C-alpha cells in the first residue's frame, strides 16, 4: 500500500504548528463578525459570511474513483442522501438533521488521537488528510431500521490514516467520539442518547481496506447532516456504527462502549454486522426497503454482511453471530 511513512512523532510536530492558524482563523472570524455588527463591512460580505455559517456551500474535492470497491448499482440522489438522515445530535426525525444543522461549524476542525499508539496528540483535519489521496467509493449503506441507500462517498481508507499513528501491540480496538456542541447541535440538549456519541471497532475491522474515513459525498465536502467534516463508513455494518463528526480516536486494549449498545444492549450489539438471519428483537432484518425505489416496489432481501461477505466474512470465522450481534 502507498503510505507516506512519517518519522516518529512527525505528525505530532506538525500538529502543534498547525494549531496556531486555527486560532488565527477564529480570531479573524470574530473580527469579521464584529465588523459586520458595527456595519463597517458592506452587505455583500455579511451575506457571504452568513451562507458560510449555514454550510450550504459544499466545496468540490479532488479524488479518483476506486472501481474495485464501488458497486455497479445506481446511487441514490443527492437530495435523498442529504434529507433522510439519522443523526440524533440534530433531532430524531429523518428530516431533522437537514433542518437543524445550519448552525453547525465543521471548520476549523481537529481530532485528538490517544491511547495505545506511538503518535498521539491533537491534529487538524488538514493534517490528518494531507498525505492521502482522496478516493471515491460507491457503497451500500444499510440502516438497522431496515432501509438502505447507495452512496458515493469520498474519503481515505481508515487503515492508512491509523497506521501513521503507529498503534502498539496493545491496541486491540479503536474507539471514536462525536463532537459535543449542544449550542450547535440541538438534539444534544435532550438526552435521547448519551452524549457524546461513541462508537468502536475491533482493530482488524478498523484496518480492513473497506473501512473508509469519509470527508465527502458526490464529489463535494460532507454536508453537516451527513457527519461533516469527518465520518466513518463501515459498509458491512449497520449505519449506526459509522460514527459522524469525529473529534476523537482512541486506541484501546478493551472493547470500548458504544452509544446504542449502552441504550439498549439487547437490540444493538458491539459488532452490528448486517445479518439477515439475526433479527432486531422488534423487527425483521431479512429484507430492506431501498430508498428511492418506486412506491410499489417491494422490499429487497438483505445480503449477509450487506453484500460484502467475500471481503469480511473471514474476520468473524468461528464466531457465533447470533451471540455477537
Amino acid at each position: 500500500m502507498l503510505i507516506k511513512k512519517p518519522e516518529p512523532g512527525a505528525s505530532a510536530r506538525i500538529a502543534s504548528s498547525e494549531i496556531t492558524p486555527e486560532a488565527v482563523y477564529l480570531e479573524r472570524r470574530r473580527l469579521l463578525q464584529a465588523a459586520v455588527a458595527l456595519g463597517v463591512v458592506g452587505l455583500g460580505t455579511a451575506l457571504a459570511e452568513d451562507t458560510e455559517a449555514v454550510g450550504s456551500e459544499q466545496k468540490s474535492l479532488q479524488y479518483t474513483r476506486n472501481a474495485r470497491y464501488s458497486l455497479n448499482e445506481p446511487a441514490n440522489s443527492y437530495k435523498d442522501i442529504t434529507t433522510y438522515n439519522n443523526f440524533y445530535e440534530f433531532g430524531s426525525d429523518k428530516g431533522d438533521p437537514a433542518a437543524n444543522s445550519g448552525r453547525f461549524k465543521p471548520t476549523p476542525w481537529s481530532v485528538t488521537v490517544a491511547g495505545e499508539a506511538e503518535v498521539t496528540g491533537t491534529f487538524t483535519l488538514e493534517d490528518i488528510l494531507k498525505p492521502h489521496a482522496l478516493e471515491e467509493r460507491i457503497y451500500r449503506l444499510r440502516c438497522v431500521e431496515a432501509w438502505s441507500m447507495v452512496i458515493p462517498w469520498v474519503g481515505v481508507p481508515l487503515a492508512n490514516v491509523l497506521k501513521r499513528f503507529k498503534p502498539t501491540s496493545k491496541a486491540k480496538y479503536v474507539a471514536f467520539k462525536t463532537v459535543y456542541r449542544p449550542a450547535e447541535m440541538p438534539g444534544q440538549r435532550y438526552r435521547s442518547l448519551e452524549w457524546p456519541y461513541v462508537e468502536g471497532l475491533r482493530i482488524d475491522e478498523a484496518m480492513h481496506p473497506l473501512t473508509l474515513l469519509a470527508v465527502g459525498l458526490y464529489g463535494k465536502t460532507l454536508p453537516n447532516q451527513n457527519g461533516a467534516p469527518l465520518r466513518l463508513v463501515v459498509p458491512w455494518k449497520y449505519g449506526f456504527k459509522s460514527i459522524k463528526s469525529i473529534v476523537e480516536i482512541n486506541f484501546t486494549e478493551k472493547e470500548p462502549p458504544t452509544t446504542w449498545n449502552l441504550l439498549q444492549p439487547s437490540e444493538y450489539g458491539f459488532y452490528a454486522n448486517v445479518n439477515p438471519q439475526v433479527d432486531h428483537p422488534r423487527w425483521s432484518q431479512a429484507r430492506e426497503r431501498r430508498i428511492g425505489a418506486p412506491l410499489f416496489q417491494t422490499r429487497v432481501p438483505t445480503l449477509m454482511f450487506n453484500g460484502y461477505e467475500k471481503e469480511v466474512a473471514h474476520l468473524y470465522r468461528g464466531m457465533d453471530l447470533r451471540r455477537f450481534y
Partner: protein
Amino acid sequence: MSPTFVRRYVKPAVFVACSIPLLSVLWRGFGLGGTDLGANPVEQIQDTFGQWGLRLLLVTLAITPLKDWFRASWLILLRRMLGLFAFAYVLLHFLTWLLLDQGLYWSGIVVDIGKRPFITIGFAALLLLVPLAVTSTNAMMRRLGRRWKTLHRLVYPISLLAVWHYYWQVRADTREALVYFAILLVLLGWRARQLFARNRPATARPTSSGTVSRTAPES
C-alpha cells in the same frame, strides 16, 4: 349551539378538517405543487395515517370530558364521525403496511404479527376497532340497546394498545409517545374519577349516622 347549526356547518367543517391528512398524502403522492413524500414515501404515508389514527382516537375520547368541562353538549354530535375517522386512518395505516411496506409478503406478515410485540398489539387494536365501527350505525345502536355502551367501552383498552404500539416502536426519543400517554391518562383518569364519584354516594349511605363502621358488611 343549536343541533341544526352543528349538523349544517360544524360537522361538515370537522369532516373536511379530518380529511386533510389523507388529502395531503394524496397531494404529495402525486407531486402536486412541487411537493413530495420525501426519501421514504412508504414510511411517510404509514406514519401519517398511524399518527392521525392515534390522534383522532384521543380526540374521540376527549369529547365526553370536554362536553362536561365546557357544558357543550353539542360536541357529542361529532363523536361518531371522529371515531369513524380514527378507524379509517388506523385501517389505512394497516393497509399501507400490508400492501406498500410488506408488499403482501405473507410469510413475513404472519411472522411479524405473531412475533413482534409492537405489531401484535397494533393489530389487536385494529381488530378490536372493527366491531365498534360496524356497530356505529343508528340501527345497530337501537338493536344492541344497553349492550352498545358496554361494547363501546372497548375503546379504552384500544387506546391504551394504540399508544403502547406507538411507544414501542420508538428507537430512542420517547417524548412524543409520552405526550400521547399523558393525554390518555388524563382522559381515562377523568372517567375513573367520574365512576368513583358516581359510586361513592351509594357506598357512603349506610354510614350516614356519622359513626363509620368499617367492618360492617354492605348488605
